[in-house]
């Protein structure tokens, strides 16, 4: 154990170097390897686990997230418009990375009649906000290109448009349907917290949105739909917290 610990920094450095995240690591950024992972590493051999272009493993938690209060939302969509107008130079709610339009009329359950939310129901509007999920991040995990990365400033999970190929798997993977697709650019896009000053929060005229220190909002059980959970084997193998080969005695 101790031996490994003493060498752990060396392993981490090599792992980081191999994955191309060396500089981020020096800045205490991306990668976080647990003790178990290190022991796993030692057993498997670094080369296999961390070859060139090895997939990401555990993403650091985001530093902040947007908290939405449905009791205050007045359904004006100014947040959606601020998101795209101020970031993309065009007003396009279908592209917005905070989601209101789909819930305005009837709430998220849609035009069922009976007791509904939204303008035609009791008025409650549940805003769609990216939870900047902790590990395992559904969209990042689903992306076969590893195009979803962590913004160094805010920790937001961000689509890198240079890497994204537009397969839309991330959209299918998000339990809350928060990934947007930019039809013009042919890439996915999602809430990136506007470098720490979310425009939607600034724009809300009813104080229904706040930008707060990150907390885990993924456990409220209110996901709108089942998530598509597909993890490529090479990706799973690289995540040594859990995905150890059969028979390996993981020290948990």
């Amino acid at each position, binding site marked *: 154990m101790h031996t490994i610990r003493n060498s752990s920094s060396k392993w981490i450095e090599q792992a980081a170097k191999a994955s191309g995240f060396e500089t981020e690591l020096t800045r205490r950024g991306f990668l976080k390897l647990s003790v178990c992972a290190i022991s796993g590493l030692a057993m498997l051999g670094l080369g296999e686990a961390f070859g060139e272009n090895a997939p990401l493993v555990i993403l650091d938690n985001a530093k902040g997230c947007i908290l939405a209060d449905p009791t205050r939302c007045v359904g004006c969509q100014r947040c959606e418009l601020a998101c795209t107008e101020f970031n993309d130079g065009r007003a396009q709610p279908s592209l917005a990375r905070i989601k209101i339009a789909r819930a305005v009329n009837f709430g998220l359950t849609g*035009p069922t009649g009976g007791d509904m939310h939204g303008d035609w129901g009791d*008025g409650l509007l549940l805003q769609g906000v990216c939870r900047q999920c902790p590990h395992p991040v559904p969209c990042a995990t689903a992306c076969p290109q590893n195009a979803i990365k962590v913004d160094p400033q805010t920790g937001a999970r961000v689509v890198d448009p240079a890497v994204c190929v537009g397969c839309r798997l991330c959209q299918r993977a998000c339990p809350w349907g928060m990934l947007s697709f930019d039809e013009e650019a042919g890439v996915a896009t999602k809430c990136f917290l506007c470098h720490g000053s979310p425009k939607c929060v600034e724009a809300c005229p009813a104080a229904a949105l706040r930008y707060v220190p990150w907390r885990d909002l993924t456990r409220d059980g209110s996901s709108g739909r089942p998530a598509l959970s597909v993890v490529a084997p090479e990706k799973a193998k690289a995540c040594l917290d859990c995905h150890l080969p059969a028979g390996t005695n993981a020290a948990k």
Partner: protein
Amino acid sequence: MAVRSGGFAGKVLRVDLSTGKIGTENTLERYAAMLGGAGIGYRVLWDEVPAGTGPFDPANKLVFAAGVLVGTSVPCNGRTTVTTIFPTCWPKPLVGSGHMGGHFAATLKYAGYDALIVEGKADRPVWLMIRDARVEIRDAGHLWGSGIRRTTLEISQEMGADCVVAAIGQAGENQAPMGMVVNSVSHSAGGVGGVMGAKNLKAVAVQGSGAVRIAGDKGEWERLIKFHLSILGGNNQHVVPSFPTPEAEYYNPASRWIGQPGKHWGAAKPPVAITGNIHDPNRIAYRTNSAAYFLGDEAWKYTIRGNGCTACPIRCHTMLKVPSVTAKYGIPDTAQNTCVALQFGRLFFERLAGRKGGEAAIEACMVGMHLADDLGLWSNYGQLQRDLRKLYEGGYLKDRLGAKEYASIPWDKYENADPAFLLDLIPRIANRQGELGEVLSRGTGAIFDHWSIPEAQWAEDRTTTYWKMGHPKHHANEDDGQCGVIINTQYNRDAQCHSHTNFVRNGLPLEVQKKLAVAIWGSPDALDAPGDYTPANVHKAKRAKWSLLRKELHDALGVCNWMGPWAASPLRERGYAGDDSLESKFLSLATGQVMDREALDRAGERIFTLHRALTIRDMGQVNMRAKHDIVPPWIFEDTSGAAPFTKGTIRMDPADIARAMDLFYAVMGWDKDTGAPGKARYAALGLADVGETLAAAKLTPEEGK
């Protein structure tokens, strides 16, 4: 101007219900000079709908136009103008527009359209499905006969939860001139529902995944948006709160900015406390509560939240929850609206009409909102209600309605201000049942025609607030002296102009208002203290012109004339000035084509003048002064005999009003005798073709003399 430059979506959708033909036009090729809104509407009517066309003829057209700024986050946008031959215009239907907010206009833009032109008549009930480039005429047989609520639900089930449905109810289906079209629960365009019904068009439903581009620098755009937010007040751009507050020097108990500490959205679960201050853009939505303003403070406990048009931070449609009404009247316990539509129900009752408040008024409003917005019945700015009261209280109905029908109406409920009265009356009118239902469904003019009641009996009775041509006053001399009178002469329905009244009722001291007046209209004499009127002058005429042009401009841009123009602001640090060039700044940035205030006002003048031309053409009459720009006799009276231009009366003087009209025609560049534009004037405004047509028909002053 390239289509992708910004603001404009780029296409106008044209649907012929007779042939089923669906096509698009390039907005800028045909309508650039008219911008949008009623501008496009008037141009279509001029070019394509001949004089003498009736509102329910297949040859009449319905132009649903958004506006250049609609779909963006410009504060207070989201408006649709619906232009057509307007059915309640009496004695002869002429060009007119209904206006509706909600989400329709923005979604039309996202679908890729600046406007929708509906022509012809379907041979059976249909609805129009618009999803981006995909447009279909679909069968509405299963929807016909349903109210707007169910229609919206069922279409949404077919199209998706985020579609926006503009539908008619039974009133429109029955081709009632008083029918309206409603989208997004409560947002209605009056008077045009019957025209849709006559075309067998039950609804237009839109979904849009596209964008409205901003041509200019997005950082500059963001800064301008934030600046605009910083100068907003409460509803109607009332720039002082109704209560003293540490951040403000001024307050006004009559202000619509009534959200103050201590108040709550009481029906939110849990209630939301009202907070905020003049400099806080994140609490603008807490300033306005239309229900509390019009119905009294009791309404706060029934308030869920504010609601309204896409992108507007004001939220003037107050959403109420009143649990008692479900058991009592069998209606949903939630409803929302603003201004007259909010009060649709209680205005029918003599006992409730005169004063704010009380639970009975609130219940009556809930019943009225539900029925009116589901059956799609218009109030004609409250004239329907005033007419019913006058007809009953004045004994007209007892005299003229058959005894059987008279007895069948629950007048005891009316006398007791029992909201259940409305459960009989409103469907009666929407379904055009019996003589009363039929007459009231046609608008005020039908009262004169059907029962041979001289119009003068309305026009001489100030309590009717009747103005002319079958419609009431809308912010006339009671608010704004001669300026208000001039404005009210200009349209073929009630004026629907708020530019002037927003300013004079904004709550600032008169001295401050006069200072702002100097900056915008050149003189402190452009306005008087209320009820302390001075004789007509050119500055008031200029302000009337500004008011009218800006109203047309706002409709063309799709911004709300109930909030704009932004002549004043709450900010002491700006001397309470707003920014009179805001519209042109936004338009320039959005489209990438720089247009200053004067250039944009010119476009507004072009649009307004085309309305004048249409009116002249379709009346077959050049003498607008005598035949159209009419004022009712009651403005020249005062119940206590006070003389005009004394303190404490709104009484006008006939010679002074004649002079006011002289001055107005002069600032418009119109002929003094007829109030009609000449050929040269049309040409100067880019309407040469219009001027020539009218001249050839001897409908311009030179030829007509």
